[in-house]
């Protein structure tokens, strides 16, 4: 389209309510199919536009949250370590250290639903069903005391929820509040009477140090390596069907644990060679004190010990950093053992 026609179209467009056509004429690309648009057009607006039909209650949400979210966000959405806090913080926004959570800060509920749906759990995005997202969102609201424990969030009830900080935002006003103040010919001479140093970065000393200062990783005990060797040699080849089953079960783990060639320590240590490995022996991972204590006593992750741990992590090892409720089904435990045994160091 020529520049003239383009301008004409623009002028015409401004006169119409639903005007079409500021079309290009390269003829590149192809029309997107409805199924393709549906697959990617997932965003949800503050008014609920984009929400699929579905529902979930607080209790269901609590169970899913414990399994899929709590390892980073805490059982009560209070946040673990440096991971985001999702609950609490009400009334702190004007404090020296505001706590910005879904309850205290987020202006729209749509944002929570949308983000969980598209981007969570961390490391396993887009694995949740719509009803699960409704349930998790309901639980987060409950954790913030914004709904009662019998609340059911659905595309129907979505509009009923009032977010406390909905009116807490203003649109960028720097043009009025700052630019006039910070404009004009600046002072060049005798701009201050005296200059004093009021704060030094070195006093805080939070700047990262370079390689030579980094702490060296604790060495793996030779004895532990020997054990790994023995078990690895003794283990029979696992049933491929069971391994496939275990791969599915592992989806619950992979937000925190990696396996395979490129596996690295994340929230949890990498699990290559875990079956038969001495506990607490992965380089560079900071284990909990209780786990290190058991490791000192010679704990080895035999299939039996792993099964006992994974069935109920918190009962098996009080104070473990692993915030996972456990695998309830024996079949799942057997499958995860089989799956993990296929990854060697």
């Amino acid at each position: 389209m020529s520049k003239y026609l383009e301008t004409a179209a623009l002028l015409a467009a401004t006169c119409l309510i639903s005007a079409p056509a500021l079309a290009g004429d390269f003829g590149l690309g192809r029309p997107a199919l409805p199924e393709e648009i549906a697959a990617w057009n997932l965003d949800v607006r503050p008014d609920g536009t984009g929400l699929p039909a579905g529902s979930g209650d607080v209790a269901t949400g609590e169970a899913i949250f414990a399994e899929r979210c709590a390892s980073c966000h805490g059982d009560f959405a209070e946040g673990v370590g440096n991971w985001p806090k999702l609950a609490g913080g009400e009334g702190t926004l004007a404090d020296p250290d505001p706590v910005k959570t879904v309850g205290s800060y987020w202006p729209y509920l749509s944002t929570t639903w949308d983000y969980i749906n598209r981007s969570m759990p961390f490391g396993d995005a887009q694995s949740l069903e719509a009803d699960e997202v409704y349930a998790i969102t309901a639980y987060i609201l409950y954790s913030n005391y914004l709904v009662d424990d019998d609340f059911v969030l659905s595309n129907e009830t979505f509009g009923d929820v009032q977010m406390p900080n909905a009116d807490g935002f203003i649109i960028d006003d720097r043009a009025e509040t700052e630019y006039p103040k910070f404009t004009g010919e600046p002072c060049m001479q005798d701009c201050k009477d005296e200059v004093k140093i009021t704060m030094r970065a070195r006093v805080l000393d939070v700047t990262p140090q370079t390689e030579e200062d980094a702490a060296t990783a604790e060495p793996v005990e030779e004895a532990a390596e020997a054990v790994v060797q023995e078990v690895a040699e003794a283990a029979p080849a696992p049933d491929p069907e069971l391994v496939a089953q275990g791969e599915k079960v592992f989806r619950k783990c992979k937000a925190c644990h990696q396996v395979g060639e490129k596996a690295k320590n994340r929230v949890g240590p990498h699990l290559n060679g875990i079956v038969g490995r001495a506990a607490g022996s992965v380089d560079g991972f900071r284990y909990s004190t209780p786990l290190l204590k058991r490791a000192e006593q010679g704990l080895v992750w035999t299939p039996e010990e792993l099964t006992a741990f994974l069935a109920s992590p918190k009962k098996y090892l009080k104070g473990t950093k692993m915030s996972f409720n456990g695998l309830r089904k024996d079949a799942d435990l057997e499958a995860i053992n089989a799956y993990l045994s296929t990854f060697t160091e």
Partner: protein
Amino acid sequence: MTESSSPKPTTRRAFLRGAAAAGVGAAATSAAAATPDPLITEVQPWAQGFGDPVDETPYGLPIRFESDVIRRNVEWLTADTISSINFTPIHALDGTITPQGCAFERHHSGAIELAKEDYRLMINGLVDTPLVFTYADLERFPRENHVYFCECAANSGMEWAGAQLNGAQFTHGMIHNMEYTGVPLRTLLQEAGYQTAGKWVYVEGADASSNGRSIPMEKALDDVLVAFKANGEALRKEHGYPVRLVVPGWEGNMWIKWLRRIEVSDAPVESREETSKYTDVLEDGTARKWTWAMDAKSVITSPSPQSPITHGPGPLVISGLAWSGRGVITRVDVSTDGGKSWQTARLAKPGEKMALSRFYLDIDWDGSEMLLQARAMDDTGYVQPTKNQLREVRGLNSIYHNNGIQTWWVRTTGEAENVEVS
């Protein structure tokens, strides 16, 4: 194998130790040599034998003596390096173009590997024909070249409450400046036939974080670029290979990497990255949103804590970077006394719109302590404020958009430290 007779130390501490030693007792003018320099009088191995053949390095990295010029991260900033940031070594670079390999990275779910043949870009929403483009399609639209800086809104964000990180890389390194090749977003929107009811575009990436931002249509039609090359070569993986969005002058979070979808709509999405993050809390607890433009800012990159003065008194090059997301840098002033008096620095070349400018102030250093500051001005007449001026308006909890004047305390030894002054 040839060994360097004086390999450069590659850690910061070793470098600082060397600097301090070199600074002491050096003369202001070049002294006569007492003995002949063996580097001149003796035949050196590199002057006698061979260097590398041309088939040694099909794609090269910097020479090993420069191995300290790398991106660094600050571990305590984030819970996991998968969703984190690292910093450009601006203290060790000169000119304005940032090499891709050391340009800061920020991703929310890791830098993904997306092949050109697997790449799809969708335009949907208020358009006549929702379209899908392949990478090959994008290469058939008329292209443009532009140099722009990309600055994370959180650059200098750790300094709101006072001097914290000791180095220009850490205080100001969430910035890079590259020459982009790409197609104007306008062209693609026209190809799909955007409707006038469309006041916004929502842009999102292909990675698991589905980082997405709403951009007003006016900006989308103005200078936003759908880019696939940077500094002449394909975008690096960590910069969004094969296609990223370039949103000149606006905060880096909007420069969607691995761009996969553009939705024309009548309202903003209010996604996580434009509500819970990238909004600026003011002193009374209300927060500013849609603070897209990066205001004028500057920093002296050398001398600075990681780039101390390694010679004695005499000629000293003070060098730094200045930029404005609202236009062109017209002037940079430098103070050596903490802001009592200022002199105008020399711009290496005339400022370019929404691109880094390099400035120099060449002085005769008398060896005394300095409180070094730089102050940028842009073509809107805006003058970079002091940190305290910003705090008066915003309080201490904004996190984002800290463009206050930085101070380096340079000691007589040549070492420098991040400080705040009255």
